[in-house]
Every structure is written in structure tokens, then in C-alpha cells.
């Protein structure tokens, strides 16, 4: 389950980045070679960035790549380090549920009711903002997986 999710997430974020390159390149080509500037490229690229930023954020969280200060964890023994890791994951998971899932869903609902759409293509903003609860759920899931993995390891069994 988690493996499949990892794979899906990786494919999704990598294709979004590749798509971004294509869209922005198309913007330059359409302006110069076809002297007919494409009206939609900028908007699509911006929406892609929001999705890449947030879903990529989940991927980085899964890979434990987000920057943090590990001065205190390094000074502690294995048990303390394990507790801190669990605490940090708990913080991330709770933040994801509160802000991204709850706040994000409210935002999706609000923009849906107000019929807010993007300027050029008329994409509902609610659709763009769907990435908030989506990445929130994923972050919460990965935080749970990470905590479970830490808890499964004996305090002194874990290396650096």
C-alpha cells in the first residue's frame, strides 16, 4: 500500500515538473516562432507550481529531506532521539491535518460556493486548492507510517 503510494507520488511530481518545462518552453516558442503568444501557458504553469510545491512537499517529507536543526537530537541518546523524532513527526502530521486537510477543505468549499475561477481558462479555484487537503492527507499518512516505524524500533537498536 505504502509502496504503491510512494511510486504514484513520485511519478506524479516528476511528471508535473516535466510538464512545467514543456508549458514554459511552449510560451517562448509560441511568442517567437509563431508570433502568437499563448494566453493559457502562464496560468497553467502557475497552477502546476502550486501542485508541485505541495505534493512535492509530501514527497520530501516522505524522504525525510526537509531541513531541520538536529543539534539537540545529536546530543541525546538513542531513546531521546527516538522520542524527538516521533514528536517532530507528530507535529508535522497534526499541522497537515489542521491546516491542509481542515483549512484546505474549508477553502475548497468556500471557493466552490463563490464560483471562483482562474482568469484565463476558468478552472475552478476549488479544483486548484484540492491539492491542499490531498497533500495534507498524504502527509498525515506518512507521519503515521514514520511514527509507527520509529515505535517499532527498540530505542537502542537504531543507528545514527
Amino acid at each position, binding site marked *: 500500500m505504502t509502496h504503491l503510494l510512494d511510486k504514484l507520488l513520485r511519478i506524479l511530481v516528476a511528471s508535473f515538473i516535466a510538464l512545467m518545462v514543456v508549458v514554459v518552453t511552449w510560451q517562448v516558442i509560441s511568442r517567437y516562432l509563431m508570433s502568437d503568444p499563448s494566453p493559457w501557458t502562464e496560468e497553467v504553469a*502557475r497552477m502546476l507550481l502550486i501542485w508541485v510545491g505541495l505534493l512535492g512537499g509530501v514527497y520530501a517529507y516522505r524522504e525525510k529531506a*526537509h*531541513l531541520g536543526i538536529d543539534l539537540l537530537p545529536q546530543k541525546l541518546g538513542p531513546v531521546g532521539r527516538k522520542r524527538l523524532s516521533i514528536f517532530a513527526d507528530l507535529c508535522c502530521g497534526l499541522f497537515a491535518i489542521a491546516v491542509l486537510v481542515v483549512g484546505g477543505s474549508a477553502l475548497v468549499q468556500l471557493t466552490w460556493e463563490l464560483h471562483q475561477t482562474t482568469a484565463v481558462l476558468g478552472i475552478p479555484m476549488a479544483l486548484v486548492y484540492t491539492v491542499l487537503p490531498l497533500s495534507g492527507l498524504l502527509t498525515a499518512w506518512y507521519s503515521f507510517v514514520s511514527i509507527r516505524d520509529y515505535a517499532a524500533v527498540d530505542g537502542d537498536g537504531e543507528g545514527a
Partner: protein
Amino acid sequence: MTIAVLIIVFFALLALGVPIAFAIGISTLATMLVSVDTLPALTTVAQRMAGGLDSFSLLAIPLFILSGQLMGQGGIAKRLIDFAKCLVGMLPGGLAFVNVISCTLFGSISGSAVAATSAIGSFMMPTMVKDGYPREFSAALTATAATTGMLIPPSNILIVYAVASGGVSISALFVGGYLPGILIAIALMVVSAIYARRYNFPAGERVSFGEFASKTMAAVPSLLLIVIVIGGILGGVFTATEAGAIAVLYALLLATLVHGEVKLAHLPDILLKSTLTTAIVMLLIATSMAMSWILAFENIPAMVAEALLTLSNNPILILLIINIILLIVGAFLDMTPAVLIFTPIFLPVALELGMSPLHFGIMMVMNLSIGLCTPPVGTVLFVACAVGKTRIAEILRPLIPMFLAMFVALMLVTYIPGFSEWLPTYFGLVE
């Protein structure tokens, strides 16, 4: 009061090892909950996060990260080093100069100080140690020289500043970064020259003209990227974001067809690595934008401006104070949140003092790049120690004169606007 909540929650979470992006988000939320109802607070933070990423300028960041990854895959570091060796290798302490110049050149292609440190450092540090340079000196020099890439375009952090400042032209910032970046490189080479005299660093061999020509030719395709990107921006052919896409295409062609170092099968991996780097920056941007919003909402920038301006009305003194605060901030905080959070706070003060937003941005980025190689939190410093197989406690001694040199360069850029403004003005990028 509310600001106390923000500061306490933020630093507590940071110290406990919560990732910075989340620590920023959680402390922002905590601050908002003091004065706003729960659901509106949650919705606002979510909205600020998504809205913070909604910018065509920021789009340039993943593109330059991707082109840097593509360029960095192959032997570009080696080619740049060989080229720099032809230029300065024969001087006493030549390898130190080669290190600084290749880091600067690498920075103008990749824009990541960490990438420069590991790519250039993994070639240069063993070579320097073999030739009798102290290991700690080599590591310290690589770390500091790598930070020039923050100022020399393409630079992601300058893009972040452009967004934070609300509309300074990225093109102007890019061009304005050249002289200050080169100034740091010169400052570091002065330190190297003093070391070379004192410790009798060896000189490399003078190269024949034929070798010079062949090494230069080998480096030209990589260096051409600079011409395309900066030339295109200066000539008004494309925006910085579009330049990013063109850079990706050029790097892709170069790496696959010309150098043949990247195979199509490598591409998914390169895309994923770029996504990872991008995502780390983007989540920092998202939550920092939310924090910056709550600070504005609580009227913090105006309070800081008033406090600073009542403290003294001497611009020289105030700029010095701002610089010292930023140096301390930079020692603890990553550059991206530092720029996003402190630009709205200090920029109004700088404007009040008659500084241009362009000049202030260059000063701020230059200042914060010193923080990249200062303990306790210095990403570049950690990488340099890992690659150079030394420890932070040991490289601090040679770092001190380098910090001093960088500080002198910073003061020159702070008090002489010409360093950051002359080139952009010359190219008509600012009025």
C-alpha cells in the same frame, strides 16, 4: 504579546528538531489562534500557503534547479576546474585560486551552493591536500567560495527576494549580483594569497598554449549557458522564468547529445532529485509567506521600522545594525525563510534611508550567504566538512579570516550602492 507566541513556539519547535518549514507553519498558526477563531485561522494559513506559491516568478526556481541538475550530472565540475587551472594554476597557491574561480563559475551555471561545494569540493579538496594545502583550509575555502553562487546568476534566492520585495525586477537583481559575487571571490583570493605567502603553498605548472586552448574549448559549451541565459534576459528576449526553461533545454541537449554523459534512462531520476530540491524550497516559501502575512497583520514591520529609526537617524549605523541582525539570523535560519520573513520587516526601513530595493536585496542575500557557512546551522559548512573529511571545530580557524574578508566585501556593497546598481543601470534595467 502575540509576537512573543510566535517567537517562543518557533524556536522551541526548531530546537526540538521539527523541520523548519513546519516549525514556521505551526508557529504562524499558533500566533493567529491568539486573535482569530479556529476555522478562519486554519483556512487563512492554508490560503496563504497556496497563494504564496502562485507566482510566475517563483516558477523559475524549479527550472533553474533542473538545469543545474542536468549540468551537474556530467563532468562539468572537472571541465571548469581544468579551465580555471589554465588561468591561475601557475601562481603560488594556485590551487586555492582555482578552487575559488571554479566555485564561482559553477555558481553561474548551477546556482546551488551545496551543489558547488560537493561537485567542486570532491575534486579540489583531495587535490589540494595532496599538494600540501592544509585540509581545514581547503574545506573552509570551498565552503565560502561556493556561496558566491548565491549572488551570481542564475540565483534562486534572488528570485525569492524579487517575490518578497513585491516587484524588484529579477533581471536587475541577476545582473546586479555579478559584481558583489565577484567581489567575494576576490576577497577570498586575497585571503588565499596571504596564506600562500605565509605557508609557502606550491605553484602549479604553467600550461602550454595547446593545452590552454583545448581546456578552454572543453569548458566553452558549459559556459555558453551563461551567455544564453543572461544574454536572453538582458536582450529582452525572454523573462527569467522563460530563461529557466531555455536553460533546461540547453542543458538537456548538452548533457545528452554533446557530452553524452546523461542517458534518457537517467532522466526520471534527475527529475525526482530536482523535485525534491524544489519541494524543500517551495514548502519553505509556502509557510514563510503565511508567517510574513501574520507579521504584517500584526503590524510588526511598522513597529520594527519605528524602533530602528528612533534608535538612531544615522543611516550608516542603522544599516550596520540591520546587517548584524541578519548575520545572526543567517547563522540560525535557512536563507529562503530568512529572506521571505525579514524583507518585509527591513525593506521599508532601508527605503526610508534612501536605499533602492535592488541594493537592499543584494546586500541581504550577500549577508545571508555568509550564514550558509557559519555554525550552528550552515548547510554548506556541513557539506564541506563531509566532503573534505574534516570537522566543523577544525575548520573554524581558517574560516575566521575568510569571514572577515567576506564581511569587508559586505560592508563595501552595503555602503557603496554602485557595486549592486552600476551594472543594472548600465544595461538599462533600472531607471
